[in-house]
Structures are given as structure tokens and as C-alpha cells.
């Protein structure tokens, strides 16, 4: 059904561009500067930034948001620096990941990051042992974390913790 395909394509592109980070998606003219600047694309056949942008422009929503590819960007910003069309590619990937997470797709490690953030206010836990060692090293004690404010901001901005799924890592 061509009509349906066209409608879907238009809406996914729009869904991305009206999001934070996704605004510049449609400026892409598929030159491939991103792919040739990408440290991951050289090593991992699953990842090609130009391809992800193309699929997004074509409205292949399901393939983009449920696939592995969008999670393989290292956020190194090489592509974004070099894009002749000023597509903010790494930011577009953040927008795609935000959509994927709302749809329930993400590697399990993101659930761990979110748990640590909401419980401790830090994404890496600091053990009591390490905290005690500070004195021995002559380092000042750690200051309290603004956990209350952090959690209020998270809920005011609609932050939802990604759930772990069985079949994923």
C-alpha cells in the first residue's frame, strides 16, 4: 500500500525532527562523510551512520528503533564535526535512542545507568571502602549529592527508567 508507506515515512522523519537533538535530520544528502569519519563503521559491519540516517529518512521506524545499530555510536562527534550539511548526527542518534527507549528497546546496561542515577545521583557507585580511602590519600571528604533535586528534575522531564529484557545482553 504505497499510501500507507508514504504516510509512515513522513511521520517518522517528523517524529525525529520535532525532538530535541533530531532537528537537523532532513538536511542529509547522503554524501557519506559521516561513515568515512566513523571509528566504529570501520570495525563493525552492523554500524554505518549514513545508513541509519537514510533509513530514518525513508521512514523505516521499526528497523531503526528496534535494531542494534543506533546503540553502536560512541558519541565521538567526528561525523558531526565534518558533516557538510551541518546535520548534528550524534544528536540525531540521541533523539533516535530516546524514541527507542520510550518504545522499550535498549541494551540492558542503560537500565543499570538509570538505576544508579536515580538511587545515588551518580552513574558509577562509590563504595564506602573507596570513600574511606580518601582520608588516607589526603583528599577532602565527598560532599552530599543533590539527589532530591535530581529526582524532581527527572520526573519533571518525563525520565523513565529503561526496563531490562530477558533476551538482551
Amino acid at each position, binding site marked *: 500500500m504505497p499510501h500507507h508507506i508514504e504516510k509512515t515515512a513522513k511521520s517518522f522523519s517528523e517524529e525525529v525532527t520535532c525532538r530535541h537533538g533530531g532537528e537537523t535530520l532532513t538536511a542529509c544528502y547522503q554524501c557519506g562523510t559521516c561513515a568515512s569519519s566513523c571509528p566504529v563503521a570501520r570495525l563493525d559491519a552492523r554500524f554505518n551512520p549514513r545508513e541509519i540516517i537514510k533509513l530514518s529518512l525513508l521512514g523505516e521506524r521499526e528497523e531503526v528503533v528496534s535494531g542494534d545499530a543506533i546503540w553502536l555510536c*560512541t558519541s*565521538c562527534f567526528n561525523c558531526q564535526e565534518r558533516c557538510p550539511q551541518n546535520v548534528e548526527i550524534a544528536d540525531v542518534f*540521541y533523539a533516535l535512542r*530516546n524514541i527507542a527507549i520510550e518504545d522499550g528497546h*535498549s541494551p540492558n546496561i542503560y537500565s543499570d545507568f538509570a538505576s544508579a542515577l536515580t538511587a545515588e545521583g551518580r552513574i558509577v557507585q562509590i563504595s564506602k571502602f573507596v570513600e574511606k580511602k580518601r582520608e588516607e590519600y589526603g583528599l577532602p571528604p565527598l560532599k552530599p549529592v543533590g539527589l532530591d533535586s535530581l529526582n524532581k528534575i527527572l520526573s519533571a522531564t518525563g525520565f523513565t527508567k529503561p526496563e531490562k529484557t530477558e533476551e538482551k545482553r
Partner: protein
Amino acid sequence: MKSYAIFLGCTIPARQPNYEISARKVLEKLGVTLVDLDNFTCCCPPPIQSINLESSQAIAAYNICLAEEAGLDIVALCNGCFESLAMVNTALKNDKELKAHINEVLAKVGKEFKGSINVKHFLQVLVDDIGLEKIKENVVKPLSSLKVAPFYGCHSLRPSKLLQLDDPERPQIFENLLEALDAEPVEYRNKLKCCGGLLKGISDDTALELAREKLVNTTKAGADCISTLCPFCFVALDIGQLQVKTKFNEIYDVPILHYSELIALALGVNPDELALKSHKIKADKIIEKIA
């Protein structure tokens, strides 16, 4: 001399006392005061931005507000913290609409982003604020015989539009600092490419391959050590060597030293005070060269 609010982030206090100790000792020697503020949280780096970009920006802005209230510029030691905070600081200063939106959120916790402070990388404080001349004057143990491969990592430089630390393709700031210590900066292939750190737990093989190519290329270039600006790069290249040994049966034995550690050594801090034991690849041969 100027005071700064020190932003420690998560990884440094959790895992890298060597970075924090050396940074504090260097600034103490150079007469800069650091203030530890209450209530700083996680900076909300790429993994959190990947979950919710807006939440991340608002939390970064909240942290900036704490420094604004204290009237202090922020110095960040970690590339990740620097990037998260500096991006938001610049973006909100330049985008009234975004600022108004984030301020609506911040009002819920009694904060308002004003745009009155700067977020600086520790490297910028050293080179731009303190100055290479002053650092040179304080060097008592020049690193004259040392070939150092500078490793910038990604988030000191990029996205350059928002971070404005140096030219993202041909940076010189780190090399200039190493030369001020009388060390020889070494050029090598893929110097500005990612360490792979952010792929850990997502694609471990690719992450390790990215770290490994830095070890290959710096070794080919004849570097005595690699110097890092970022705790994630440090881990990727230091612990990474143990993983490369297991997986590829290759031994590089190239010590990884944060730039702050090299400066501390050059300024005459006793190596025993620097928690160098926390390095997996021991820095002993570097210490011997300097002594």
C-alpha cells in the same frame, strides 16, 4: 589567584584517586584554590543523554546553577563532565528559547540558569588561565627524556561548536603543555579517534579493538607512555592492555599517565604521594626516566 568549583563527577572519585590527587596537588603548587560545593550530581553524560536528552540538559543546568550561586567557574577533570556541562552552558547562553524551557523545569527545584559562569576543562585552566610560562617556571624535574603520546579523547574537543577548547582536527593545546614540561609530544595514527570506552557493555569487542589500535600506533611511534585527559580513556588504555593480552596475546606494557600526573612529577611532587599503584600498567619506568 582565582578559585574554581571542582566538579569531580562519578568515575574519578569512584575509581581514579590518582587523577584527583595529582590534579589537586598541581593546582595547590600553582596557587589555585579549589572549592568543593554541596549538591553536585552526575553530569548526565552520553549514556543518560541516550535515555532522555532533555532530562540530561536540565540536570547539567542544575549543576551549573550551583556554581553560579557560588559565583565560581567550574573546573571539570573528566572529559565526560566537561562535555555535558560545557555543551549545556554554551547552548543555554546562546538559545533563549531553550533557556526559558529549561528554566521552567529548574523552577521546580528553586533554581534559575543565568549564564554567569564558565565551564572549563582542567587543561584549559592550566594552559589558558594559569599559563604555560608560569608552569614552566615551576618545573623542577623537566621531562626531557620522555616521549609522550598525547591522547585527547573525544569530549575534550567535540562537538567543538559548543566546547570551544581547540581546533577539533588539529589541536595543539595538549602538545603545548607537554612541551612546557620539556617532554616530547609524539605524533601517531588515529590520535584523535575514540578510545572505545562508551561501547563497553554494548559491544565489548569493538571497544577493545579501538583501544588496541591506539596501543599499536603509539608503540610504533616510539612513545614511552600515553597521556590521557579523561578517566574513561585511561581505563580503556590501562585495563585495556590486560584485556588485549588475554584476547590477542599481545603485550604492549605502555604506561598510561594522566597529564596531571606528568605535571605533578615535573613540579617535583613525590611519586609516592600520587597513588600510582592504582595503575594496572605500572609507571615505574617513567618515574625512573624522570629521576
